[in-house]
């Protein structure tokens, strides 16, 4: 808690190139981050990347969560291990891996070129597209686990009843399974969103300064430019952005889950 208090304190101090911070109360740091066009642009880009990552994670996460739920034995174990891997691998290794993949001469471009799918190398490194591809790989696990746990919560007899009543597999899925996993989808989306907004390592290497996002901006202020007041104000704003969805999310997910439980009974 103390580190956060320090941060809150610095965030209302005035920046001074020599002293780093002068203790007189001001809100100019917050105003700067929120209203200056450049900083607001960084913030907006961060939101855009997180939103796209969340959508892509949902699209890619659902089939895996479903397979993980249906599969048994060895298949289930293998999928589970694969899904959990990014959680256990150091972020710096993932970031390094994505740099080797996304560079103009990197793996993805040379593979696509040798297959004659593209002529010119795609611009992936230092672009939002590249960041979204990398972030999705790193954070997909949170979406998959959330959806998986809501699949596990569905009573198995519901599937059987739907099929006995004559529903096809597709109908069972769209009318029974999908609606019942909405709490998991909501929870996973909010989780992926807030984790992507605050993810630093991949953003630092793949987005770098060309597609600057908020966490990288904070790092620069704190470590390179030594503008601690501005860095602190940004940190507090990021904390708010990251925590609000989680808080709303857990309340919402809880209420949705309650509603479905009542509907089930």
């Amino acid at each position: 808690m103390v580190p956060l208090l320090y941060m809150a304190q610095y965030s209302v101090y005035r920046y001074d190139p020599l002293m780093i911070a002068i203790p007189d109360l001001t809100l100019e740091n917050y105003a700067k981050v929120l209203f200056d066009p450049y900083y607001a642009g960084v913030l907006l880009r961060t939101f855009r990347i997180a939103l796209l990552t969340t959508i892509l994670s949902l699209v890619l996460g659902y089939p895996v969560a479903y397979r993980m739920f249906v599969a048994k034995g060895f298949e289930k174990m293998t999928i589970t291990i694969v899904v959990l891997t990014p959680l256990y691998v150091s972020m710096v290794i993932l970031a390094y891996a994505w740099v080797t993949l996304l560079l103009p001469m990197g793996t993805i471009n040379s593979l696509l070129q040798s297959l004659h799918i593209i002529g010119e190398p795609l611009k992936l490194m230092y672009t939002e597209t590249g960041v979204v591809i990398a972030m999705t790989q790193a954070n997909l696990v949170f979406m998959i686990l959330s959806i998986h746990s809501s699949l596990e919560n569905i009573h198995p007899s519901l599937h059987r009843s739907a099929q006995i009543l004559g529903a096809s597999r597709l109908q069972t899925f769209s009318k029974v399974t999908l609606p019942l996993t909405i709490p998991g989808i909501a929870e996973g989306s909010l989780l992926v969103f807030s984790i992507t907004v605050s993810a630093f390592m991949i953003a630092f290497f793949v987005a770098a300064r060309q597609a600057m996002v908020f966490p990288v901006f904070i790092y620069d202020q704190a470590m390179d430019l030594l503008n601690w007041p501005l860095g602190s104000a940004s940190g507090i704003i990021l904390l708010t952005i990251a925590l609000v969805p989680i808080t709303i999310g857990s309340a919402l997910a809880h209420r949705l889950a309650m509603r479905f439980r009542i509907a089930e009974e």
Partner: protein
Amino acid sequence: MKVDLGRISAYLICLYILFPILIVASTSFTSTPYVTFPPKGFSLEWFVKVLRDTKILNSMLVSFVLASITSVVSSILGLLGAIAIVRYRFRGRDLLNSLFLAPVLAPMIVLGVGLLFFFTDIGLIGTLPGLVLGHTVIAFPYVLRTVSVSLSGVDRTLEKSAMSLGASEFRTFLQITLPLIRSGILAGFLFCFMTSFNNVSISLFLAGPKLPTLPLTIFYNTQLYFDPTTSAVSTIILIITLVIMLGLERTLGLYRLLEKAKAISQ
């Protein structure tokens, strides 16, 4: 034969999740002086280079020492915290519990910057105690969680029988409770070790030039130059991580592991 589209897409997405890690591992065996995929030839020269590089070996030592101390400190704190929260009823218990778990929810970068300001003020920047403290903040919630879970599963009648047979409270804890929650502590310890060993976002702000951890060395090397040595170091870390993961699987079982991952991420 019927083509199961759902299954195929699930496998392809799994491949996408594994892809970066497979690439790093395979590029570390290349015989070319640059990172390339598919790797050309096979050589172990990059691993040899790693083992000859005193800077990398030094940072490996720093990481091991740091992760070990952090795990021990976090395990002790986590155990005490779990006992307080599970066994005792007091005012502000829920608040304390959420305060303990808060560091997991806060963005790592915010925590790192906050710690930077705090430790600069009290002179802990660039010191081992500072790093240990910083890592403990993010590692100890894991022990708290795993120990709390196994502690609430302990049958209290066992402790009561021990005490009615004349064992002191301390002896009961040592000989009855502790063995029963052993797997929870061990799992928490391994989680801590892994968290600390792999962490870079906190170390980045606290380490300073004198204490480069292994992930930090990768962090700086990736910015300077691009050769397969970094792949080789990453492969070594991946193997260590894999060993710990297998250790966790042995102590907890895979599905419990999954539950743990969920409990911690939420």
